[in-house]
Structure formats: C-alpha cells, structure tokens
C-alpha cells in the first residue's frame, strides 16, 4: 500500500479540490486503506453539513437582472433628456455618458455585494445549544459548527469530572511534573 496521504490532502480530496494527478494518487490509496476511506467519509459528511449551513438565501436572479437592465435604460434615457435640454457642448463629455457610467458603476457595486464570497460555515443556528464533551484527547465545547477544545497534552492518566456548568480534566503534565486542571464552561 502507498504512503498515507496527509490529512489536508484527504480533506481536499473529499471536496474534489485536488489536482488531477494527486486526486488519482489519493483515490488509489483510499481504495485500499479503510482508515483513510473513513477519514474521507467524515470530511465529506462535515463538508455537507457546513455547506447546508452556508447556503445563501434564494435570490431571484432573473428578476434582479431585469430590474438592473431597466435601471440602466432609465439612466440612459434620463441622460438623453438632460442632454437635449441644455446640451453643454463645451464640457467635453456628455451627460448621457456620465449616466451610463453611473449605472454601470452601480451594477458593479451591486454585483460585488451579491457575489462576494460568503463564509463556508454560516452563522450558528440559534437552536444549537452549546455542549461539552470529553474525549481521549481533551474536553471540548461545541456550538454550531465551531468548537474549542482544551487538550490533555502530555498526560498519562486523566481524571474527568463534570461540575455544574463546567467539565474538568485533571492530569500530571509529563514535561513539567505539575498537576494541570483544565476546565471548560458552558453558559
């Protein structure tokens, strides 16, 4: 079996974001390796969850485009009216052109605002309450798609204890020989 791909490459593979050659290489490994296949499945599931949370609200693109075209046309016509009345030939640029430019600028600004990259993970859902849980590597508080974990690094044995709104992990740090007590609180 080939060498395990890095976690980053597995994540990119799950999202279909690898180059063709690397995708082929990872695909070949994943077909043989259960652990990597599981990791890819987890990444895919996480990706689906975050995508579901990050979906933009429905926008009626056709009607928006029609409205914007109408605005541009209106701007051009307004420019023509102004030009017919005063015709300031000495200015060196036509008001019709200014109106067209203004409309185009507005179009660009609106397009940018609509199309700007949205965060991949959207706002935390209000109904997702914070939860604390212990695992082999530490205590984690999760809230929506976000999490903070205090790790029990360099611990031989760990004592976990829930108390009120906090969860604690107590261990001896093998580097310093000091007892360390991590607590994570939920409100």
């Amino acid at each position, binding site marked *: 079996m080939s060498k395990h791909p890095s976690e980053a490459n597995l994540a990119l593979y799950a999202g279909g974001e690898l180059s063709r050659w690397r995708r082929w290489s990872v695909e070949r490994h994943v077909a043989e390796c259960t652990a990597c296949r599981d990791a890819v499945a987890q990444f895919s599931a996480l990706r689906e969850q975050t995508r579901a949370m990050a979906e933009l609200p429905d926008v009626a693109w056709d009607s928006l485009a029609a409205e914007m075209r109408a605005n541009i046309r209106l701007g051009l016509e307004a420019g023509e009216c102004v030009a017919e009345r005063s015709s300031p030939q000495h200015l060196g640029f036509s008001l019709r052109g200014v109106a067209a430019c203004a409309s185009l600028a507005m179009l660009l600004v609106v397009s940018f605002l609509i199309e700007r990259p949205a965060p*991949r993970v959207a706002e935390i859902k209000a109904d997702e309450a914070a939860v604390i*849980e212990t695992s082999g590597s530490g205590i984690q508080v999760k809230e929506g798609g976000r999490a903070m974990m205090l790790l029990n690094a360099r611990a031989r044995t760990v004592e976990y204890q829930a108390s*009120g709104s906090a969860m604690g992990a107590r261990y001896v740090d093998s580097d310093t020989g000091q007892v360390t007590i991590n607590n994570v609180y939920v409100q």
Partner: protein
Amino acid sequence: MSMCSKWITAAFAGALALWAQDVPFDPHSSIEIKLPPDSPVALLSTNVRDSGATPRGGAMVIDLHMALSLRNSDSRTIRGITLLVTAQEVTAGGKASVAVPSLNVAPGQAFPVRIDLRLLRPLQAGAGPLVKVSLDGVLFEGLDFYGPNRLNSRRSMTVWEMEAERDRKYFKSVLASSGPEGLQREMLNSLARQDERPHIDVRMSRGGRSVTSVGEPERMVRFAFLKMPGSPVEAIDGWAEVAGNEARTPTIQVLNRSSRPVRYVEIGWIVKDRQGHEFLAGSVPAAEGDLLLPPGQTGRVLQDTALRFSRNAGEPVPIGSMTGFVSHVEFADGRVWVPGRAALSAVMAPSPEEQRLADLYRTKGVGAVVEELRKY
C-alpha cells in the same frame, strides 16, 4: 518540450500546489495575554512552537500550544494559579480555564504553565486575536488570594491546597512511622487505584435533555448518601431524572449541622452502572450566591444540566443507581471544610497533590518523594 523544461514545469506545478495548500497562520498574533498592572506574576516568555492550522472540509482546525514562563513577583510563596482562556469568535458562550495547583514557587522564582488548545472555526473569520488569556487568581501560602475571581478560582484553589496539606501530613506520618518502604507502599497503592479507576466519557448540556436515549423510559432515581465523618453539612435526600445512560437535573436537600452559616456545598456524585461498576460522574455544586444556610437549616442544591455517560467510544453506560457524598463545604467567612483521608473511598478521585506525588514516585522513585515532602 525538452526534458529539462518538462522537469521545470512539473516542479513549478508542484510548488504551486503546495503553496495553494499552505494555510497562512501566525500563532503570535492569534494569542493575547493580559495580566493586570499589579499582578503578582510577570510574564517572562511565551513559546508557541508546534502551533499550526489545517483546513478540514469547510473549516479550519487551529492547534495552539502555549508554553508560558511566569515569575513570582510577589513577596509570598505561590501555591496555585488559574488562568482564564476565552475564544469569543469561536465559541461565543464558552470559556475555559487552566489551573495549576500544588505549586511551591518562592518569590522571584520562575515557573511554567502550559496551555494546549484546539479550535475549529470557519475558514473565513475576522481579524484580531483568536484566544485571550488572562489571570483569574493566584493562591499564596497561608491561603491569601489575589485576582478577579470570575471563575471562583479562590474556592477551588483553597480546596486543592487544603487537600494537599491533608495528604502531605498523612504521607509524612507514614514516612515517620514506616520509613521510605511504607511511603513506597502508599505510592504504589495510589498508582494502582488511579489505574483501576474506570474511564468514562461524559457529555454535558445545560438545561433540558442532552440526547434522547432510545426506548428508555424516564424515571426518578433517588440518591443514597455516604456519611462523611466531621462534615458540617449532611445530605438528607436527593434524586435525578434518569433515562438509560442519561441523568439530568439532580436535586439534593442538605442540612447544616454546624454552628456556622454555610454559603457553598458541593456533593460528589457516584454512578453505578447495571453491571455494578461504580464511577465518579462529577459533582453537584450549589448555585453561586444562591445558598446561605444558617445553622440547623435545610437548603436545596440543584443543577440544571443533563449528563450522558458512555465508554469505549460511544458504548452507552446505563445508570443503575446513584450515590452522593459531601465533597467540600465553604462557610460564610470563606473558610473551607474538606473530608479527612479516612473517609475517602477508592471510587473518589485522589487529590491533585496525591496525583503529583504518585507521579513523582513513578518517574523518580521514593527518594524524590521523601525530598519533596521535606520542602513543606
């Protein structure tokens, strides 16, 4: 295309691919450490080596490994310290603390504090520090305290220090009566007890039910109580709602048997599974500022949380019965009561000091423990 230019193109493409996967991350700018101007500890250095960020799906995993070097700038010996850790952008409602009890840091001496954090956040997030570290409290020899005490670290550190004094006194008496061999036996027993303690995973949520326990009807389970000799407070009745491997809203009635008013009680919570295995699930603390128990009066300690127990990565641990015991009491004048060693059973956790001394024995032998006990 010549062979040489093919190689150059391939190398360029490879470099480009690697660059695209790199995540720009500066651990120094991600951390803000703030100590008050009159803080009794000074920050000497911060090492964030081995910190890094990795993309995972649509999110970013950030590992922050902080090794802080602090100096005791006070004239008293430090016995413990608690740091408050917040990551507002990552978990709006969450905060954490890192405490180091059982210290013996003389004035002017430096000591390390390690903080290891993992954050999961969206790929695109705001600027500014991700993690803020501040001082919540410092406990000195003689139980003097300094700090804003937002996390009630004064009480926790006082309890740990009183337990440490109790255990050092006990081990010194063993050393005096049975010599290093007797102390060695105590250390071996302690290590064996720690290894035998069952490891249970706990999931906790505030209020309501944490998860549904499929097909398990909900029932009220009554606590049995252990008598703790010398306890100023007695637990007289208590119950919790139990469904399968989940217990919620434990409620315990307590009676102040002492002649002094009590402002805080914590009840240790032992759960027995249906196979008869006991484990320490946690504790039920009185709500802050909610309990002022005059002598002879009863009060109620309750906790609006749901706890779910599992082992071996998700296997539910169904709850059979529950036992409670008074683990510590704080009087209205700030003094604290902790149980004597004789009252402790194997299912209760050893004190932080016993854990430290047993680990010292494991790594350096009984001579190091004897030397350590002589420092106090």
